[in-house]
């Protein structure tokens, strides 16, 4: 069972991964350990999870402008999410992805969806993000 959502490609690119869904805004400075890909903040609803290879889904970014440096380092170390999907443009994270593309020719695609569309993505759903901002979602088969 798969369906399609249409968003805006803020950083265009293609990627596939299982959704890691958070309902909280995040700053990656203090919110992501680039050495391990882990979320270390005890106040975060996905504390302890590893973002590496996942499509990280959350409402919007907040806080420190150092977050782009964290994302750049995570991309260099290959601990970054496969893609980032949000309900608002996240310029600081987009910047980290764009600088990584300039420096290493690698980027994390970023797509912005409407809030209602974002809310339809479930944790663990299989997502593919396309350069035009389209996202296909396959919900893991529950055996029906």
């Amino acid at each position, binding site marked *: 069972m798969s369906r399609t959502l249409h968003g805006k490609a*803020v*950083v265009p690119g293609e990627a596939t991964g299982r959704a890691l869904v958070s309902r909280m*805004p995040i700053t990656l*400075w*203090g*919110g992501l350990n*680039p050495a391990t890909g882990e979320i*270390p*903040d*005890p*106040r975060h609803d996905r504390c302890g999870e590893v973002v590496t290879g996942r499509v990280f889904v959350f409402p*919007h*970014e*907040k*806080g*420190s*402008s*150092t*977050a*782009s*440096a*964290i994302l*750049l*380092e995570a*991309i*260099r*170390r290959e601990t970054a999410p496969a893609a980032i999907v949000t309900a608002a*443009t996240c*310029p*600081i994270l*987009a*910047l*980290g992805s*764009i*600088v*990584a593309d*300039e*420096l*290493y020719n690698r980027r994390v695609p970023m797509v912005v969806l409407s809030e209602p569309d974002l809310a339809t993505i479930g944790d663990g759903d299989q997502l593919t993000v396309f350069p035009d901002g389209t996202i296909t979602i396959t919900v893991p088969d529950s055996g029906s």
Partner: protein
Amino acid sequence: MPLRLSETDQRMLDGEMGEAARMALSVIARMAAVYEADELMDVTQAHIDGCGLLSEAGLQFAETLAAQGARVRIPTTLNMGPLDLQHWRDFGIDEDFAAKATRQGMAYEAMGCVPTWSCAPYQGYLTPRFGQQIAWGESNAVVYANSVLGARTNRYGDYIDICAAITGRVPRCGLHLTANRAGQVLIRLAGFDEALLARDEFYPALGHLIGPLVGEAVPVIEGLPAAATGDQLKAFGAAAASAGAVALFHAVGVTPEAPTREAAFQGRQPSRTVDLTPADWQAAWEDLSSAADGEPIEMVLLGCPHFSFEEFRRLVEAARAQAGRAVHQNVTLLVHTCTTSHALVERTGWLDELARFGAKVTLDTCPFHTPVVPPETKAIMTDSGKCAYYAPPELGVRVAFGSLEDCVLSAVEGRVTRRAR
């Protein structure tokens, strides 16, 4: 809509002004698409945050630009760096870390940046003027420049800041434009007595309260006293930009774009109004602490953002109030500051006095970017809402928030001791 580039922009993007300028303008142009800006604009000053964190990628980025001969086109200051360049050996910093941090610093200085190494650039050299279009990084500096000085900047993250400095250009959007500087959310302080409004710890806790309430919106605060000091507004803004994404606030009768409520909202209506009570403030104050009264502490961290001359004065007075008692043997009291404040303090007798009290002063850096907090540290205390917010995830510690005076008292007692509430 495609991005309109000036002739010079296009020459930079085509590599005619060197590979560094090409890469810098490419980052700016791609970010213009992110912001949905249709053209670029000039900025006349920059403040670099990207020099602060030491990572392999950040070092490679800076050294790549410097090796390509990048030069800043506008006066550019540096945020605090990953190393106390003079005293790092005193703090037992690893040689390899220090060598890389020094290389990163040298790369930024080679590009022509002024070695201010401060996260409080508004209290030092090259303070921007009202209405000046600037490109500043560091969330607390951004909110101060926009709100208190009335200069105009978006929140420039690592590493668009140096790209703006190299090109002198930014996407034309956001808080650079008058209409986007209008207040959106009205915040009314109801029932706060003057004594509370005068207390320094009122401001970081208020920032911690308002930040998450407004997110990225521009709050207009009614009820702050006109006598609020620069240090108090700095502490407020730093906390609001940590717990939320505040890049500009107006305080009616206090900040320059808010002589009246109408002016702050540019004649529009607030999208919503929030009344805050002392009980709300008290809850935010408590939320800043995870360490309880009486809990032993190993460190007290002051100077987030970097300590000003006046904050040193208060620290000295608080130390004197201990009447000869000094910092507890189990506690390190660390004050973070910059060379501009420090140069003024050197003209007083305070540094000797603070050394005798047991306080350590460190320049150019902060505990989040240089390894001065031992990994086994369990609990710290701070007077900063920003430090209290970031310490648990970044330093892996429990934290107690309190006034500067209570921080000093706790440093002496060796445990969280808060007198005034």
